[in-house]
């Protein structure tokens, strides 16, 4: 019996993900755009995964080992980091769309002790409105601004994750703790 109602072709991430390597772009290192109350022209977006290295580097210097594309209960976490003591952080990377990042980050609350949205620095002002800050804080999600560096704009609430055992880490981490 054809089972069209029960199955669907997997597209996008469902089709599988490469868990190694990331794009590098010379345009990554751009400043935040909120200057003296004026917003300068915004740059064209860069690949989302280009945000991975600066976030992973910052976490590595804080003692976190990071993995890329981590399977979690039917979803994929862009960046998942863990210390030797077991403290964990999940990060949803997005270049510009903070609302979509927030929706996705909310689904990760039970994967890690802290959950962050990481935005490309030129677009981070969009999430730093009073509405944005209220929604992020209400959901307990932190905010990172990423260019050549990674800056914490809003701290994440600390949460006791229910489903740590359902986080499937790839065999090889992408960045080891320093």
């Amino acid at each position, binding site marked *: 019996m054809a089972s*069209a109602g029960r199955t669907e072709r997997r597209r996008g991430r469902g089709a*599988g993900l490469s868990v190694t390597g990331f794009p590098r772009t010379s345009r990554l290192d751009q400043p935040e755009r909120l200057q003296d109350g004026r917003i300068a022209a915004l740059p064209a977006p860069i690949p989302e995964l280009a945000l991975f290295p600066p976030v992973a580097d910052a976490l590595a210097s804080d003692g976190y080992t990071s993995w890329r594309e981590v399977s979690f*209960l*039917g979803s994929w976490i862009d960046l998942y980091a863990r210390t030797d003591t077991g403290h964990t952080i999940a990060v949803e990377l997005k270049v510009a769309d903070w609302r979509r990042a927030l929706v996705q980050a909310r689904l990760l609350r039970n994967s890690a002790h802290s959950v962050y949205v990481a935005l490309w620095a030129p677009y981070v002002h969009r999430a730093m409105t009073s509405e944005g800050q209220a929604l992020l804080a209400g959901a307990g999600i932190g905010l990172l601004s990423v260019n050549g560096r990674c800056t914490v704009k809003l701290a994440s609430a600390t949460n006791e994750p229910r489903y740590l055992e359902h986080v*499937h880490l790839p065999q090889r981490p992408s960045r080891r703790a320093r």
Partner: protein
Amino acid sequence: MRDGMGGWPEQARHCLRLGAMNDKAIVESEQDSFDVLVLQANLAISARKALSSWVGMQKPFWIDPIAYTFAAAPAYLMSEQKLKRGEPEMQVTYKRTFRDLAEVYGEPFSRVLEERRSLRPEDFDPQEDQRVVERMLEWQRTVLSPPAEDAKFFEDEEMALEPVLLTVPNLPLQPDVEREEEPAWLPVNVRLVEAAATIHDPSRLAAGLLIEESLFDSRSQLDRVGQAYQAIPADHIWLWVSDNNEIDMTIPRARRLRDLVRSLVESGKQVHQAFGGSFSTLLLRDGLTSVGHGVGYWEHKSWEPLAGGGLPTLRYFYPPLGQRLRFLDVDALVDALVEDTEEFHLEVCDCEVCRETLEGNLGNFAAYGAVVVRERRDRSGRVIEYDVPQPSALTLSKRHYLRAKAREVARFLATDFDPQVRLAYQIDRHERGQQIVDPGHLKVWRAALAEHAGTSA
């Protein structure tokens, strides 16, 4: 299986449509959660022995002869098969199931397969209507009975296994775009029901009413179809609006569905929704006799057979919204709206499967979303990871679906149940303090039902 010669059971309100034999174990173990098992003819003919071996299944059954399938493009009924076993040569030909069905059904079904084309209304010769119908109804009456040579192994009552209703073959009603008159298949469908009524009592007959989406949105032609079906000599109507997803329905469409059911019920018909979701369950209060669906799927379905394949999807049926959702969406809702398991069972689901699974600990809820990660390498040698649902998670989700649906039918039919109050409560609860899942479809349902009740939405 139970014999259905006595006709439609008075209390039966809930049908389960079996789509694949690999759901057999779940259906058998959860048989308390539905009233009538619906088998599609393609399953009945290809797995006849397996079905008649269901000694543990104490339910009456109903067969959908899927005559409409032969009106679809032949490509839907074909697959690539080996020309000869053991040899590499391939050919595109009709699947065995459809060839077997065409052989049983005879003319004109067998002829159109030979001619590799779709059925057309002119293929049905009015002089032959009675013979066509007789063959197809007789096949339904006997297909699950053990063969005569095995009679010594069975009790008398096990030898005669009839479906609860005999379904008259029906073809899909599509709009007459050119003349704006009536769907081309309508006169044929009506003729076949009239022919069936000369053989069987109307109380044993179900007439399929399969409406294409575009016809459903054409008021004048839909009215004509409704009037024709009000007058046919069959007591039961098996309604199917092709691919009508109740979650995405507009208010006019929801009202049209309600009005169609209501008008047929008022003309004395017993109306069964072939593929329905929670809105259809609400229509049970409006006179709908039964609602049907599959094991976690088929709350809506297109009549043209679509290619199968792909990996099974994992969804949790979330009763407050009457919607199947990805596990993490439900989990986020639970996080936002529920404090503990007690509140979970009060507000989300109190079925036996959820109680067994949670065992007082919300952390156990992840059992519904568990996946296994697998690895492959792409052409350039990079490691590619993908996830598939754990079989135990799929089983749990299906069992929960069946149990939760049974509770939904019972709750919606309870005398103290008020759809307006229930829908308003869930809309309010899910709009407040969370932006995870939009409860907009509940507003559509509420508006569609409110007008009928004489109150504003």
